[in-house]
């Protein structure tokens, strides 16, 4: 069980912003943190990791206080047991892939060996290469392997897939899912990508203006609970064209481009580039004369 109740004054681009977060995570849950840029998502991850100090509050993990302003407790990042996947991966450029992972394993108790990690993340063939010679997806796998090497209590991922192409994203998403199924740590992923959130997270926390505005299952948060859809996909609007009385939308669902029809009313709040949910309530039955 991970419980976080903290406040922190951040200096954002638009002036000071007060971050006030209360959230609880099941010990094995994969949760997502969703919100606009500048809403404090990265800062929240850093405070959980011990890389930034909250102004007040508590962070408790499995009953162990990591931070408690009232009792003057503030565990150093090295003693907390978090795995952190940084947005820029933060691989050590002077070390080979193997050395990066060995460095992480040093002083760790139990968990996987370097060889097992290399195998799990399909890094065997790259073990003696330096990070600078790897592709984005490969670097990402090294960062993941390194972050889970010490069997952390919580894995924190700061938009780990955003810099990769769609195909690599899908593949790594599956790998992430596999790891989270096999391991016993909680994971909190910062993501802008609805597809990613729907695929990975059981719970999503929506951060807005420094506070958790809503939380719940992704489908509840993004689609509303009233809709009883059969098909539902996270998608991005690529193009809106007017065709007679209706509009034709070109949308991307994963790697597939689909054209759908929408009315002017539906499009009132939707612009090109928006993330949307495409749902279908039921198929229209085809009615034909018998015989």
């Amino acid at each position, binding site marked *: 069980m991970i419980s976080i109740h903290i406040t922190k004054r951040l200096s954002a681009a638009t002036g000071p912003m007060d971050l006030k977060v209360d959230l609880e995570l099941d010990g094995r849950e994969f949760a997502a943190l969703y919100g606009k840029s500048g809403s404090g998502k990265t800062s929240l991850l*850093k405070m959980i*990791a*011990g*890389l930034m100090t909250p102004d007040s509050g508590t962070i408790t993990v499995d009953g162990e206080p990591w931070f408690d302003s009232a009792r003057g407790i503030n565990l*150093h*990042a*090295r*003693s*907390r047991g*978090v*795995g*952190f996947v*940084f*947005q*820029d991966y*933060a*691989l*050590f*450029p*002077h070390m080979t892939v193997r050395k990066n992972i060995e*460095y*992480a394993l*040093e*002083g*760790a108790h139990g968990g996987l060996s370097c060889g097992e990690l290399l195998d799990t993340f399909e890094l065997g063939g790259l073990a003696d290469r*330096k990070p*600078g010679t790897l592709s984005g997806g490969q670097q990402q796998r090294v960062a993941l392997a*390194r*972050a889970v*090497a*010490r069997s952390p209590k919580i894995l924190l991922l700061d938009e780990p897939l955003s810099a990769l192409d769609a195909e690599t994203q899908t593949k790594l998403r599956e790998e992430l899912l596999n790891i989270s199924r096999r391991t016993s740590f909680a994971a909190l992923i910062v993501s802008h990508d609805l597809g990613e959130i729907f695929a990975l997270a059981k719970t999503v926390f929506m951060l807005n203006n420094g506070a958790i505005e809503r939380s719940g299952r992704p489908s509840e948060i993004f689609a509303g609970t009233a809709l009883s859809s059969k098909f539902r996909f996270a998608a991005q609007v690529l193009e809106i064209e007017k065709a007679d009385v209706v509009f034709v939308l070109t949308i991307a669902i994963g790697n597939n481009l689909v054209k759908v029809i929408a009315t002017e009313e539906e499009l009132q709040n939707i612009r090109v580039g928006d993330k949307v949910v495409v749902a279908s309530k039921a198929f229209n039955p085809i009615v034909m004369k018998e015989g």
Partner: protein
Amino acid sequence: MLSAYAITLLLTFKLAAVTTALLLIAGVPLARLLASMRSPLKPVFETLIAMPMVLPPSVIGFYLLVAFSPQSGLGKFLESAANLRLIFSFEGLVVASFIYSLPFLVRPIQAGFEALPPSLSEASFTLGKSRMRTFFSVLLPNVTPAILSGGVLAFAHTIGEFGIVLMIGGNIPGKTRVASIAVYDEVEALHYGNANDYALTLLVISFVILLAVSIVNRRRTRLA
């Protein structure tokens, strides 16, 4: 029996080597400290360290001469406490060269540390490593090109120093008479041949050192 030429050159290199070694020991942590400093006093420290880059060497030499002289408080203290006399001695030259060459070592290394993304040390912390371990295993290996250029600049600069050495070291053969002083001395005595021996040696050595650094750094960037 070594010739005057050899004695002078040996002394010059000994001074440069000792100074550079001390500078590396003190300057690398100092550069790291400055790079991570958030205090509003940071510009003041930076300016203090950079002063020797703009001040005439004779000005620094003059103040050091005053400070180190046995009549001053500091000079008296050093002499009674450590039996150390810093004027007209090799030790004095080391101290003066240290101060004079400090910015040439600290500035490139500080820039090197500042160029490293903070996520590198943060990643090391989350992997259970201490500040000390992170410094030696993660940060230091990634600023080696900067340490190399800083060290070489400081070394070359110490070899080339003239004004400060003349002010506080004088011209004692085998003790404080370094090559740059010897050139001046020989010219004054109208021994142009001897002066040329020193001058040419310094010229060639400086060229070779800078060339070597440039080649090493170029190879590094190609590998990275």
